[in-house]
């Protein structure tokens, strides 16, 4: 072999070999020191214990609350913002969701909304998607959730419109200016990984209880994808296109409008799509501050563990998500509609809107045609069956993973002295990404210690790593399958969509029965939410491998297995690392949900901080710790990706 290897290859191989040795050595040293120093310097903090920092945050929070009615910033700044947003949301609700303008029903009834949805889909996305949209909206009515769905749709649309209003210009700016981009990145990281529970209560202090707070809570989480993807789209426009435009004497403004935006259009629409999905995933959380709609139905049903009703409402959210996703995805393709179809569609839509304005049968969805009750009953009996017959198997699986994977990893991270873990992290960062990575990691580790929640952070980190491993295993297995088979893709994709937007608590109720309130349940919940993203990315990556390469490999007599392992996966390296990165971030965004089902640690700290005012400061600190973990892991995986793909 040595003789065959090109002379340049040799030192590189040797270098890699040496590095593996070094990493192995570090881990070994860590294990030995762990044995000696176990449970020393772990910086633990009891659930009800506070640090001075936590108390200080509490006092700031109290002071802000107490000065609310006299502070000019509140009176003239936040109040104005609140008024504008409130008016906007209430207006959309008046159109499609709530009785308004002295009428017992909204301005546009169900028939009109279905008509409009169908027509808009027809224009931007074509016949097939239009049919899907009509069927989807009708099914919302059949589920017995018309009004709730329209409330949710109003709030989502309002949040999305405002997100885009600010997000796209900001994204363009970040795409054009490196400095703007550098400043925005950490802010966006913060917005996406800071748990909503941390800012939910303060939001109602700033913007009062009502649509404005719910909308703002939603858009804090939903706007970042629009900004990021727009910036990315602008940056990806080939340089020579821009140069050509400039050499022809175009001004910067002209280049932007005539060249950059049109070339980036497709990608920007994907950003819109991601923003809609993110907004819909906030529906249940916003319900905790009285946001109207399907989220309320879910939250209420869960008080009595009524999985059937919660599932029905969750399904309505999934239906809305799938319709909006397919419409926006299809909108990336340019299409022209024949004139007769355009005007015919417009005519039919006008008629439906008129009917729904005038006649009761077209305004209120008929209550006696429905399948909502069957869905509720079906979901309830499936859940009961699963809860009765599976715990024996699932409990064993839970115990196996817990003892074989979670416990050892957690023991190593959370029972080592903090300085030992810190040292290991910094050294590994140096090996992965050089001095820069090492500095970033060192700062992050310092911040974790400063939050006073070091041990909780390490427990959460252990669970996060286990969840990410499971996400990647699923991602590779299902992603390759979907990437190689169109049919598998078509069948699985809707399930993945459901996993992403179905409110977690709907499936957590049966999960609690199957796996009890444990760290494992929290991990499974995170996997359900994060795996779809990883699977989709890997599937797209595998599909993007040029067919010619795959054919060549098959022609040379490779088996399917060889083709996958030797050709498709290595060539989809970029997708794999992106999947790992996104998987991690998504897993981290479920830490708080995990806290609700037995994960303890940072997730529980955040939840408790939301519920008890004297734990508020600690909850906020825990939120910051989650953000810090996110930033550290994100930068590390990105550095690793860079190394690996070069």
């Amino acid at each position, binding site marked *: 072999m040595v003789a065959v290897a090109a002379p340049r290859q040799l030192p590189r191989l040797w270098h890699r070999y040496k590095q593996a040795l070094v990493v192995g050595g570090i881990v070994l040293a860590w294990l030995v020191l762990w044995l000696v120093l176990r449970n020393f310097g772990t910086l633990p903090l009891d*659930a*009800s214990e506070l640090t001075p920092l936590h108390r200080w945050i509490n006092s700031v929070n*109290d002071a802000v*609350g*107490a000065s*609310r009615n006299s502070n000019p910033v509140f009176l003239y700044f936040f109040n104005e913002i609140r008024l504008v947003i409130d008016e906007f949301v209430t207006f959309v609700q008046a159109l499609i969701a709530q009785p308004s303008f002295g*009428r*017992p*029903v909204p301005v546009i009834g169900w028939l009109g909304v279905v008509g409009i949805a169908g027509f808009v889909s027809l224009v931007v996305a074509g016949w097939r998607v239009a049919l899907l949209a009509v069927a989807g909206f009708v099914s919302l009515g059949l589920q017995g959730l018309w009004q709730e769905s329209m409330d949710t749709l109003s709030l989502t649309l309002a949040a999305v419109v405002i997100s885009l209003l600010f997000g796209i210009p900001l994204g363009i700016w970040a795409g054009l200016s490196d400095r703007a981009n550098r400043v925005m990145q950490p802010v966006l990281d913060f917005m996406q990984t800071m748990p909503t529970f941390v800012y*939910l*209560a303060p939001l*109602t*202090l700033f913007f*009062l*209880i*009502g649509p404005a707070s719910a909308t703002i809570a939603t858009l804090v989480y939903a706007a970042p994808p629009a900004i990021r993807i727009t910036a990315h789209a602008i940056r990806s426009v080939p340089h020579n296109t821009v140069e050509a435009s400039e050499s022809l004497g175009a001004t910067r403004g002209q280049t932007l409008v005539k060249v950059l935006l049109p070339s980036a259009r497709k990608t920007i629409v994907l950003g819109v799509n991601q923003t809609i999905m993110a907004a819909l995933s906030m529906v249940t959380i916003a*319900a*905790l*501050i*009285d946001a109207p709609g399907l989220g*309320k139905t879910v*939250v209420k049903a*869960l*008080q*009595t*563990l009524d999985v059937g009703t919660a599932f029905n409402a969750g399904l309505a959210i999934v239906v809305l998500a799938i319709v909006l996703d397919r419409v926006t995805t299809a909108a990336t393709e340019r299409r022209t509609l024949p004139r*007769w179809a355009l005007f*015919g569609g417009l*005519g*039919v839509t006008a*008629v439906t809107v008129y009917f729904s304005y*005038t*006649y*009761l*049968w*077209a305004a209120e969805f008929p209550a006696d045609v429905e399948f909502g009750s069957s869905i509720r009953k079906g979901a309830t009996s499936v859940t009961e069956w699963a*809860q009765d017959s599976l*715990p024996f198997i699932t409990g064993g699986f839970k115990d196996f993973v817990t*003892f074989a994977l979670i416990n050892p990893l957690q023991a190593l991270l959370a029972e080592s002295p903090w300085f030992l873990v810190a040292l290991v992290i910094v050294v590994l960062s140096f090996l992965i990404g050089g001095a820069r990575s090492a500095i970033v990691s060192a700062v992050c580790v310092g911040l974790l210690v400063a939050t006073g929640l070091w041990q909780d952070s390490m427990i959460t980190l252990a669970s996060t790593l286990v969840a990410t491993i499971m996400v990647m295993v699923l991602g590779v297995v299902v992603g390759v399958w979907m990437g190689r088979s169109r049919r598998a893709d078509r069948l699985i994709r809707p399930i993945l969509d459901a996993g992403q937007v179905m409110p977690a*608590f709907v499936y*957590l*109720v049966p999960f*609690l*029965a199957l796996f*009890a*309130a*444990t760290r494992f349940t929290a991990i499974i919940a995170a996997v359900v939410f994060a795996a779809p993203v990883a699977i989709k990315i890997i599937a797209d990556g595998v599909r993007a491998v040029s067919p010619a390469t795959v054919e060549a490999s098959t022609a040379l007599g490779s088996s399917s297995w060889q083709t996958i392992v030797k050709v498709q996966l290595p060539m989809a390296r970029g997708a794999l690392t992106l999947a790992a990165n996104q998987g991690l971030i998504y897993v981290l965004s479920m830490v708080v949900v995990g*806290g*609700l*089902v*037995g994960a*303890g640690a940072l997730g*529980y700290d955040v*939840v*408790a901080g*939301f*519920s*008890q*005012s*004297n734990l508020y400061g600690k909850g906020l600190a825990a939120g910051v710790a989650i953000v810090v973990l996110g930033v550290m892991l994100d930068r590390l995986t990105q550095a690793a990706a860079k190394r690996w793909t070069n």
Partner: protein
Amino acid sequence: MARHSVLGAVLVGALALAGCGGAKVGDSSSGAAGDCGTFNLAVNPWVGYEANAAVLAYVAEKELKCKVTKKELKEEVAWQGFGTGEVDAVVENWGHDDLRKKYIDEQKTAVSAGSTGVKGQIGWYVPPWLAKEHPDILDWNNLNKYADQFKTSESGDKGQLLDGDPSFVTNDEALVKNLNLNYKVVYGGSETALIQAFRQAEKDKKWVIGYFYSPQWLLNEVKLEKVKLPEYKAGCDADAEKVACDYPDYDLDKIVSKKFADANGPAYNLVKNFKWTNQDQNTVAKYIAEDKMKPEDAAKKWVEANADKIKAWTAKA
């Protein structure tokens, strides 16, 4: 061109069809407004509270002709609403000394409106089968004897004490330490987690001990038994680190915004006079949780059967 005429025919047909029948919007409209005005009622997320709120809202709407706006909020957010003027009343409050201090004593935006008549209890509970087979488990002195049975994947080599709903104050870590119990507090993190654990424990005869409270609708279905801890004496929980006694009994009360109280309208009067019993609340809670009735229907059913109580609440002061 033929296509145009087809479309036209479809449209005309549809129009004709609709014109034939169907009630028009606005044919029958009813508007009622009394002198009560708007009553902003917070609804905290548990069924017992929902029962209180449903009955109060029903009476306020039907008898006093108020316009009731229910706002579904967590406690913390609801109390905050007193100051911003968006919440008039919280009608089942579990202690919450921290919130009292902040909003009643310091910010002076809230005042107490007396007891709801419902007694709340917090403590450690075991499923009924366990209490039956091992009656001595109901005394904390014997808990260490059974610690091994309560081991789970989360509790290491100790017994698991399942804690849970982060909304309530818990002294459990201090209790375990100060009573020298060989247990580890595991944070389930939500009421849902606790209910599932106890339900399954009873069904499959599993060993579970955990933090719970009454009144709670689950107790209608699974009659959990309370474990006796060292008796509560006033002040024994003053130092959170050194607690070694049971939780106090809570007199669940009503809190209203200062503005609402000062205005002294009919809705305030109703809230002030509202008083019923654990039994009453359990009845309405059962309608909601087990019979799956809508809160307003559950309230209607109870109100119609208890007209005399309502009279006392709505009597002019």
